[in-house]
C-alpha cells in the first residue's frame, strides 16, 4: 500500500471516495456500532447474565452445531459437485452449473416453506421417511437440510475457479512418476484445493449460523429444542427484551467478524499460493 496518494489526472477521487465512505458509514458502520454501544451499556456482568441462560445456550449449541455439520456436508458434496462440473463433459452440465446458484436466487422464505412441505410427515419425502421413524421437519434434521440448501453454492463457487485453473501438468507429472489416479488426487490435487475448500466451508458455515428465512419454517421453533439463534433474537424483540436481543446480536456479530477475518486471511493465503 502506498503511504502517499500519487497525483492522478483522473478526476472525481474526492467525490467518489467521500460518497462511498459517507454511505458506508451511515448505512452499515454506524448502525452496527450501535449494537456494540447498546451491548456495552449492559456491562460485562449484565451481558453474560443475558447470554448465560439455558435457552440461549441451547440455541447456540443448536445453531453452531448444525451449521458446522451443514458446512462439513457442503464441503463434501460441494467438492464433488465442483469436481463434476469442472472436470467432466456431459449433457446438461451447463444447466446443472447454472442451477447451483438457485439457493442464492430463490427468496429464502420460498425455500423455507417448500422444504417444510416436502419433509413434513405428509410431504413427498417426509411420508417416505415416516415409516422408518425419521422425523425431518420440525426437528434438528430439518434445520440441517435447510442449512445445507442455503450453503451449497458457497463451496461450489469457491472451488470451481481453483479447479479450473489447476495445472493439468501437475497431474500428468504425478502419473508419469507412477502415482495412481487416487494417489494423484489425494496427494497432489486435494492439498492444493484445501485452502479454497476451507474458505467455502467457512462461508457456508457463517451463512448457516445467520440464516433465518429458509430455516425458520422447518425448524418448529420449540424453545430449547429447535430454536435457532436468529429466531431467538426475534422472539426477544417481540417481547420488548431489547437488551437481550442486543446482547445476542453483539455476540453473533463478533463471531461473524472473526469468521470474516479468518476467511480474508485464508483467501489471501490461497492467492499467494496460486501465484507461485
Amino acid at each position: 500500500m502506498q503511504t502517499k496518494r500519487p497525483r492522478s489526472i483522473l478526476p472525481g477521487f474526492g467525490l467518489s471516495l467521500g460518497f462511498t465512505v459517507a454511505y458506508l458509514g451511515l448505512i452499515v458502520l454506524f448502525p452496527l456500532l450501535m449494537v456494540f454501544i447498546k451491548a456495552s451499556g449492559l456491562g460485562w456482568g449484565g451481558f453474560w447474565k443475558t447470554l448465560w441462560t439455558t435457552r440461549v445456550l441451547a440455541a447456540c449449541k443448536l445453531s453452531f452445531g448444525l451449521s458446522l455439520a451443514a458446512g462439513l456436508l457442503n464441503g463434501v458434496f460441494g467438492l464433488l459437485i465442483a469436481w463434476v462440473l469442472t472436470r467432466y463433459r456431459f449433457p446438461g452440465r451447463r444447466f446443472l452449473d447454472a442451477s447451483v446458484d438457485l439457493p442464492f436466487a430463490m427468496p429464502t422464505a420460498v425455500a423455507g416453506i417448500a422444504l417444510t412441505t416436502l419433509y413434513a410427515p405428509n410431504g413427498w419425502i417426509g411420508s417416505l421417511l415416516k415409516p422408518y421413524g425419521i422425523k425431518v421437519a420440525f426437528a434438528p434434521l430439518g434445520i440441517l437440510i435447510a442449512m445445507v440448501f442455503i450453503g451449497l453454492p458457497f463451496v461450489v463457487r469457491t472451488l470451481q475457479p481453483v479447479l479450473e485453473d489447476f495445472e493439468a501438468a501437475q497431474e500428468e507429472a504425478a502419473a508419469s512418476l507412477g502415482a495412481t489416479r487416487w494417489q494423484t488426487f489425494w496427494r497432489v490435487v486435494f492439498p492444493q484445493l484445501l485452502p479454497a475448500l476451507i474458505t467455502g466451508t467457512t462461508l457456508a458455515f457463517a451463512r448457516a449460523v445467520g440464516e433465518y428465512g429458509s430455516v425458520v419454517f422447518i425448524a418448529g421453533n420449540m424453545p430449547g429444542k429447535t430454536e435457532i439463534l436468529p429466531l431467538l433474537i426475534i422472539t426477544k424483540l417481540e417481547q420488548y427484551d431489547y437488551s437481550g436481543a442486543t446482547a445476542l446480536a453483539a455476540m453473533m456479530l463478533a463471531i461473524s467478524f472473526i469468521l470474516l477475518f479468518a476467511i480474508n486471511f485464508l483467501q489471501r493465503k490461497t492467492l499467494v499460493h496460486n501465484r507461485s
Partner: protein
Amino acid sequence: MSIVVQNLRRTFGTFQALRGIDLEIADHQLVALLGPSGSGKTTLLRIIGGLDFPDAGQGRVLIHDEDVTEKPAADRKAGFVFQHYALFNHLSVFENVAFGLEVRPKKNRPDKNAIRDRALELLRLVQLEGLEQRLPSELSGGQRQRVALARALAIDPKVLLLDEPFGALDAKVRKDLRRWLRNFHREIGVTTIFVTHDQQEALELADIVVVMNQGQIEQIGSPQQVYDQPATPFVYEFLGDVNKVRKPGRPDLFYVRPHEVRILFAGDSKAELHAKIEHLFAAGPSARLTLRLQDSRDTLDADITRQQLDEMGLSEGDEVGLQLALSS
C-alpha cells in the same frame, strides 16, 4: 533400441497433429525434436510418455523393446520434465523429488531411509543440496528446472523426456543450463529426448536432431548432417540463415547460406551473378552484406571476413560479382 515409434498418427478433431511418424532411437542418445510450433513435436513426446495416445490402432510405441502403446503413463517409467516444470506447489523440494518413490505400491517401495538417501543423492547430482526444505515458489527458474529433472530421475526412468526444457528461462540461464545438461546427460547416460523450437539449442546439444514439420519428420541426422546436407527445403530454411536465389533464365529456386556466397570484384570472370552492396554491417571478425541482384528485385545476404572486406575495400553502393556454392 531404446525407443521405437511406428507409423504413429494423432488427430485432434480435424487437425492432424501427427501424420505417420516412424522413429528409432538407440540407447544413451540425446535426441532433439526440432520444429516450429504446431509441428507435432510436443504431441509426439507426450505420446511416448503416455500422457496422450495415438488414434485407435494408428501406430505403436516401444520402449526398450516392450510395446507400451496401451500402457498408462504410471507404468511406463518414462521420466517427463514439463515445460513449466509442473512442480507440486504444496510440497518441498525434497518431497517433490521423493514423490515418485513414495507412491509406489508397498511391496516395491523402498523404506523411508532409502527414499531419503536417494532423494538427497539426486539433489546433490543436480547441485541443489541445501535447498531441500524450500517450496517451489522460493526457487529461481533454473533451480525449478533442476528439481523437475531430479524428480523425473527418481523413478529410475528408462527414458527421459523433456518438453521445451529451456523455454521458460531467460537467455543467460538458458546458455548455462544447456552446457550443464550436455554434461549431465553424459554422466547419467539415460536415453533422452527433448523438444525445442530453437535450432541453436538443438544443434549444440543433441547427438541426433529430428526435424519435424506439420506432423511429419523431415529429416533425422546428426547436427552436422541436418545443417550441411538438409534433406528438404523446409530443413534448409528452418536451420540457420538461408538465401533463396533465382538465377537469371532459370525457373528453379536455389538455397544458399550467407557464408557460402563468395564476393568477387565486379569485373571478375568467375562471377555468376552481379549485385550492388545495399547495406554493409561490420562488427567483430565478420561482416554482413545485403546485396541487391542486378536485373532483379531479389536481395541476398552474404557473410565475409573482416579481412576480405578490408582487402577489397568494399563500401556501400559498390558493384560486386558473386559466386555461389550452390546447393539446391
